[in-house]
């Protein structure tokens, strides 16, 4: 299986009384809470952590896009990915991803992803989320009733821009371009960089992923127990469509805290986990459900109770309702897996096999976790957990993984030597 190291880049210094004094961590979070000089250190710590994860042998490092968000400081994940392209060598770069409907024209995504693919020597995984209501409809003012149609059209345009050899005209419902001809072009051109789709539990998304042969990723913050219904729904749908159960068709997000013992893990990770589930997910419910964001088919499925649980989990308003904010409930609910290395091994194997997920995206930094603790968690996972779980799904081929240039053909990047160190 693939073990991927995911960073959300949360602002780590939201005040203790944040939930009392502020209605939302997202959309209208107050600017007075943001200290750019502190953020300078946060960004640099976070990028250190991503580079460290690559060094420790994780298969990929993952970044994502959020706007006006106190737990996600990456309006442009591409900026971080381009830096990682230079500071890592063999690790896949998973940009999870660019919300296609927010780019005008969407060929901007085709271009920037092609740049990252070129700079990195073909290590890009291209994630195409629709984007959350908060990011797209509220922070970016996109029309919820048009968002999905725009998304699908932007997808068609980006894909064509990557694969069409000649300059072409695109006459879409929302996008009109006379001359589409992106420079640069992605290294991964057979036919294009792997496309992964993070989504909620909607049947339409599952069907689309199957039809397009894309990886479906369920990026819930609520762990493997809550995720089971959704992933079962996904695999049932794959079976109906005659697709095999190759676990690499799927990705799943899981928080983990590993330490020498379960008690030490509780001591180390309770504060950052409670910070995340308490402050970072404190989202005003008025931004949860812009009309039109959820398709009528998904609403109907939810109401009919055919797949009530999956649909409800896809619904941010219901998510908020089942939110636990103390460590006991967080751990009991499976939001965060904690324990000694062997206990974590057992749980990770269980998550992978019970959900049948070959791409496990791990959050080993969350909330206000310090760089030291993050590196400790990352190192322990890499040294003591990873070797004992890598064999899971070894019988399956991952057809959705980047195919970079051969190592010997790739540029060698000179080692980074900070001036200040040289001067000392």
């Amino acid at each position, binding site marked *: 299986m693939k073990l991927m190291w995911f960073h959300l880049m949360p602002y780590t210094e939201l005040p203790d009384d944040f939930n009392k004094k502020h209605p939302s961590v997202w959309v209208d979070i107050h600017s007075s809470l943001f200290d750019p000089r502190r953020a300078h250190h946060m960004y640099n710590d976070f990028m250190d952590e991503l580079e460290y994860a690559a060094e420790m042998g994780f298969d990929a490092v993952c970044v994502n896009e959020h706007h006006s968000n106190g737990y996600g400081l990456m309006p442009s994940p591409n900026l971080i990915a381009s830096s990682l392209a230079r500071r890592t060598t063999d690790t896949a770069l998973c940009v999870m991803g660019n919300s296609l409907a927010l780019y005008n024209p969407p060929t901007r995504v085709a271009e920037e992803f092609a740049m990252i693919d070129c700079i990195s020597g073909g290590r890009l995984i291209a994630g195409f989320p629709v984007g959350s209501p908060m990011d797209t*409809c*509220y922070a970016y*003012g*996109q*029309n*919820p*009733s*048009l968002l999905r149609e725009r998304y699908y059209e932007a997808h068609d345009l980006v894909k064509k821009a990557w694969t069409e050899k000649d300059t072409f005209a695109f006459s879409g*419902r*929302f996008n009109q371009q006379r001359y589409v001809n992106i420079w640069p072009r992605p290294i991964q051109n057979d036919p294009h960089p792997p496309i992964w789709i993070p989504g909620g539990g909607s049947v339409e998304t599952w069907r689309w992923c199957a039809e397009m042969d894309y990886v479906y990723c369920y990026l819930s913050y609520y762990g493997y127990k809550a995720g089971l219904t959704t992933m079962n729904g996904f695999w049932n749908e794959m079976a109906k469509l005659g697709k095999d159960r190759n676990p690499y068709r799927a990705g799943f997000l899981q928080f983990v805290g590993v330490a020498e013992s379960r008690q030490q893990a509780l001591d180390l990770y309770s504060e950052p986990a409670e910070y995340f589930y308490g402050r970072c997910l404190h989202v*005003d*419910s*008025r*931004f949860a459900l*812009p*009309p*039109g964001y*959820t398709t*009528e088919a998904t*609403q*109907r499925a939810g*109401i*009919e109770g055919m797949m009530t649980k999956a649909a409800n989990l896809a619904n941010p*308003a219901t998510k908020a309702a089942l939110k636990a904010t103390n460590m006991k409930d967080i751990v009991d609910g499976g939001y965060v897996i904690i324990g000694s290395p062997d206990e974590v091994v057992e749980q990770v194997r269980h998550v992978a096999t019970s959900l049948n997920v070959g791409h496990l995206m791990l959050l080993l930094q969350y909330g206000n976790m310090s760089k030291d603790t993050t590196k400790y968690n990352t190192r322990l996972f890499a040294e003591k957990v990873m070797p004992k779980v890598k064999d899971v799904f070894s019988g399956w081929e991952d057809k959705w993984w980047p195919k970079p240039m051969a190592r010997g053909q790739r540029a060698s990047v000179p080692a980074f030597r900070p001036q200040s160190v040289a001067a000392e």
Partner: protein
Amino acid sequence: MSEPKTETVEVNGFPCRVWSKGQGPKVGFLAGLGGLPRWLPFLDELARTRTVIAPSLPGYPGATGHSVLDTHLDWILAVHQLLEKAGLSGADLVGASVGGSFAAEMAAIFPRSVGKLALIAPFGLFDEAEPAADPWAQRRDAVAAAMCADPRNWEQLVAAPEGANSIEWPIEMVRAAEAAARAFWPLGNTKLEKRLPLIGAPTLIVWGEQDRILPPSYAKKFADGIKGATRVQTIAGAGHLAYLDKPEAVAKAILTHIS
């Protein structure tokens, strides 16, 4: 309260319900946020002396077809077709909220298709100095009080009637909100101010004194922008959907204007 007559017309190949009731000269009504999930006492007031014709906007209860309307021009042409097919060409026209904005567009762009015009807290303008509230970012328990001075009036509008399909009814209510959002997201600003000077019809502008969506001060912006004779009437005790809060007072003001 007797039932209205129901007909269906097609706009862009999608069905739109047209309700009618009463006698006398025709008057059209384009509803506000939430549409017309049920017939209203306000419409009965108008129907005493007029033939009230209430076509459902695409996506509103009783109608679909919002999903093919991508631009404001698409919407304007759809509403124009709807009025023609509902037999409202040249008739007096009343529009509220979302429907009010379209009624104003009709009078501006197709002046011969509208007789006298009455606008109840219409959408279409946005003033950064006096921002309108966001009707699509309200906590669930705050929606009713945003729509009406008396929240019970909104709750009554959207409550599922006995025998309603328990799956389709809530979806229809969301669809009405989506249709309005599709046309007016994110600010309700369709740059209608550019077209107000084209309105020559005598226009009554009605505003609920307690409108918590669109500031009542917007009434003057409409009155100042419209070329034809205008009069502003504020309704005490009424919110954004003033015709739900004060059906008699609003109907009386309108009947006085169009008589």
